C-alpha cells in the first residue's frame, strides 16, 4: 500500500519537475547526453531518499539541490573545470520553437540570451536561472545553493546588473 502511494507520488513529482530539471542541468553542462544521465541520477537519488522516509519540506527545492550536487560531483570526478563554452543550444531542445510563428527570429533571440547568460559568473547564472526560468522563490534558491536568503537577493540583483551590461 505504502509503495503504491510512493510510486504514484513519485510519478506526479517526476512529471511536474523533470522538464525544468533537465533544462537546469543542461544549462550547467551544455551536453545533451550528459544531461540525460544526470537527470536520471537526480531522480534516482530523490527516490532513494524518499523511500528512507526522510522528511522533505520542499520537494522542488530538494530536487534542484540534488541536481546541482550531481553536476558538481560529475566535474569533481572527471577533474574537469566547468565548461564555459559558447556552444549553440542543442536542436533537440528547441523543438517547441519550431511550432510557433516567426520561429527563426525567436530561436536567434533565445540563443542570444543563452550565450550572454553563459558569460556571467556561475553564481549569477544559478540564481537568475533558478528564479526567472525555473520559478523558484528566494527561500527555495537559498536552500538549493545553501546560502542565506539575503545573499541570494544580492546575487540576483548583481546578476541582473551584470547581464544588463552585456545584453
Amino acid at each position, binding site marked *: *500500500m*505504502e509503495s*503504491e*502511494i*510512493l*510510486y*504514484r*507520488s513519485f*510519478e*506526479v*513529482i*517526476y512529471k*511536474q519537475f*523533470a*522538464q525544468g530539471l*533537465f*533544462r537546469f542541468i*543542461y*544549462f550547467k553542462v551544455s551536453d545533451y547526453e550528459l544531461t*540525460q544521465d544526470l*537527470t*536520471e541520477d537526480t*531522480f*534516482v537519488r530523490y*527516490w532513494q531518499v*524518499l523511500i528512507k*522516509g*526522510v*522528511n*522533505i*519540506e*520542499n*520537494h*522542488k527545492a530538494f530536487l534542484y539541490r540534488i541536481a546541482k550536487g550531481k553536476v558538481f560531483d560529475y566535474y569533481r570526478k572527471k577533474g574537469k573545470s566547468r565548461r564555459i563554452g559558447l556552444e549553440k*543550444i542543442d536542436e*533537440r*531542445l*528547441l*523543438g*517547441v*520553437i519550431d511550432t510557433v510563428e516567426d520561429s527563426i527570429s*525567436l530561436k536567434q*533571440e*533565445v540563443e542570444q*540570451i*543563452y550565450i550572454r*547568460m553563459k558569460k556571467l559568473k556561475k553564481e549569477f547564472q544559478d540564481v*537568475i*536561472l533558478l528564479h*526567472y*526560468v525555473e520559478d523558484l*522563490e528566494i*527561500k527555495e534558491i537559498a536552500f538549493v545553493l545553501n546560502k542565506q536568503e539575503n545573499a541570494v537577493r544580492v546575487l540576483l540583483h548583481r546578476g*541582473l546588473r551584470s*547581464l*544588463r551590461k552585456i*545584453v
Partner: protein
Amino acid sequence: MSEVELVKKIKLLKTIKPASAELDVIGKNIYSHLGIEQRPETFIKFGSQPVIYFGTAFAVIFLAIIFNINNLLPNNIHTLITYTKITAASNQYEKAHIALADIQNKYGTPDMIKSSNSEDISQSLTLTNNELSNLKLKGEKGTYTSQQCLALYKTYLLYLEKLNKNIPDNGQPSTRLLKSTIAKYKELSEQKLHMYK
C-alpha cells in the same frame, strides 16, 4: 534596457526544453535502474478526454480515499501526499488552502497538538506559511480574489492563536522555538491581513 525587458528576455530560456518523449525514456530508465516495475499510466488520453485504465482505477480510487484519511498514515507519507496535492493544485490560493486545511486536520484539537512532536508541527506550519505568503493577486488575476485571501488569512490567524494556546509550556528548546515561530508568523500574517482589507 529596463529590468522588466531584461527579465522578459531571460524568460525566453523557458522555451528550451526536452521533448516529452525524451522525458518518458528517462522515466523508464529510472524505473529500470531502481528495479521498480513500471505501472501503467494512471490516465490515457482518448481524443481530448482522459480515460482511466481499468487496471489503475483501483489505485486512483484508493489514493482518493487515502488523500481524505491521510491523518492515519505515517508523517512522512502524509507530508508527501500533502505536497503532491499542493503541487497538483492549479493556483496559489488552492495550494494555500490545501496546506492550511492539512495542518488544521493534523493538529486541530488540543489533544492532537499536545501529543505531537514539535518538529513535525513546525514543519507543517512552515509549509502552510510559505504557501500563504506566496499568495499574490498579480499574475493570477481572475483565479482568486482579495476577499478569498482575506478569509484565508483570518482563518490562519485564528488557527495560530489556537495552536499557540495549546502548545505545552514545558521549557523544551523545540517548544520555545515553535512558539517563537508562531509569534513571527502571526505578526507577518497580521500585516498581510491589512493588505487584503
